[in-house]
């Protein structure tokens, strides 16, 4: 838990995550795009579990639903689930070394991707295979950099 957090920084990261999830991306690399909003939700519930929680994550997920044109509530549910899982493990998570944190990021975001994928499939989307899990992997790779950067910014601005 950080002693100080910066709310402006929170807003900036949310807007940035939303922008990054729609901005143009090299075509061939499209499915490897990290789940930016999932990372942001993970970071803030992990660092400040008292201030940010399930309802905030749900609202952010709703915005992602609008951007992605998925049925409203799909990503919202996924994000809320990430927040819930982070809230239940955040005390142990802080003791983990960095590689193990990355593994947890992969697992939690993978669970989120699976849930979203499952709902979409149930509503009639048609995409076979496990390639929908790539964003979880790239997010896990991005995690140490993101976490380090945001921690430093929080300490300077908070």
């Amino acid at each position, binding site marked *: 838990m950080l002693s100080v957090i910066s709310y402006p920084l929170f807003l900036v990261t949310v*807007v940035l995550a*939303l*922008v*990054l*999830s*729609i*901005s*143009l*991306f090299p*075509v061939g690399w*499209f*499915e490897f*795009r990290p789940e930016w909003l999932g990372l942001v939700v993970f970071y803030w519930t992990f660092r400040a579990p008292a201030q940010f*929680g*399930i*309802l905030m994550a*749900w609202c952010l997920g*709703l*915005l*992602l639903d*609008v*951007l*992605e*044109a*998925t*049925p*409203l*509530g*799909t990503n*919202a*549910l996924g994000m*809320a*689930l990430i927040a*819930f899982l982070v*809230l*239940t493990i955040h005390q142990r998570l802080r003791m983990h070394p960095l590689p193990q944190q990355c593994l947890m990021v992969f697992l939690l975001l993978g669970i989120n991707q699976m849930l979203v994928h499952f*709902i979409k499939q149930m*509503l009639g*989307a*048609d*995409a076979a295979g496990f390639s*929908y899990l790539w964003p979880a992997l790239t997010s896990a790779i991005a995690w140490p950099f993101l976490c380090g950067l945001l921690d430093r910014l929080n300490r300077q601005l908070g």
Partner: protein
Amino acid sequence: MPGFRLFLVILISAALIAADARFDKLTPVRSTLETGLAPVYWLGNAPYRFSDWFAGLFVSRDDLQSENEELKARMLILERRALKYAALASENNELRRLLNSSEVLDDRVIVGQIVGVSPDPFSHEVIINKGQSDGVTTGQAVLDAEGLMGQIVQTSQFTSRVLLVSDSSHAVPVEVVRNGLRSVLLGNGEADELDLVHVPDTADIREGDTLVSSGLGGRFPRGYPVAEVSRITKEPGEPFVTIRAVPKARLNQSRMVLVVFQPEARDRLEDRSAVPMEEGTN
């Protein structure tokens, strides 16, 4: 406590998903939220505008001059073609009037720019910077310079969402330019490949044929190029041939698009459905 909140959120989400996906009740909510998210689209597009502006700062006068001359020459060629087209169009309308069918009016278009793509890699959608405030409505066709790109599926105040022809849930009624053979062109989730379905084994279709929108179904305007047949596979024993086509529009490269306003699309549809009855009574 977190458990109770999660439970609450699951209930709300389930209700929302059902209301949105099954009953289409949430379109206004979505449209309002999307209007609120317009700054996000604007920011997402900002780097491109900046790089355009930056590139514009360092263009030499000679380059501009040569480009200007090139464009003038090109405009001359196109103007000559437009002159001929005007004559042909009036002649065509004259003939149609003789046949007692309605006149074909020219479609009005507005130019839009792609400001984002859908984050979901399994759906082929783009977001353009024209919305309800420009008069865009759901169902309008979207073109680029080469051909049909897709249709508007959702609008907000300043942006709208375009479903591309290559999306696996998209279909366009088309006809072969050479002989008017009608069929339906389906997207299959690949950006550079479309499927032409239900074409019988014996149909007259060749590789290289151009497919244009047929206007049947009343959604797409008639006569815009959609794709070119690239591969035909005949399987002995199958009633239909497998036909692959390459979309004409540059689906993942174009930045500028045209949104088409069809004049009285409904009138034309009624007119077309009325034609066979007239023939029957005469």
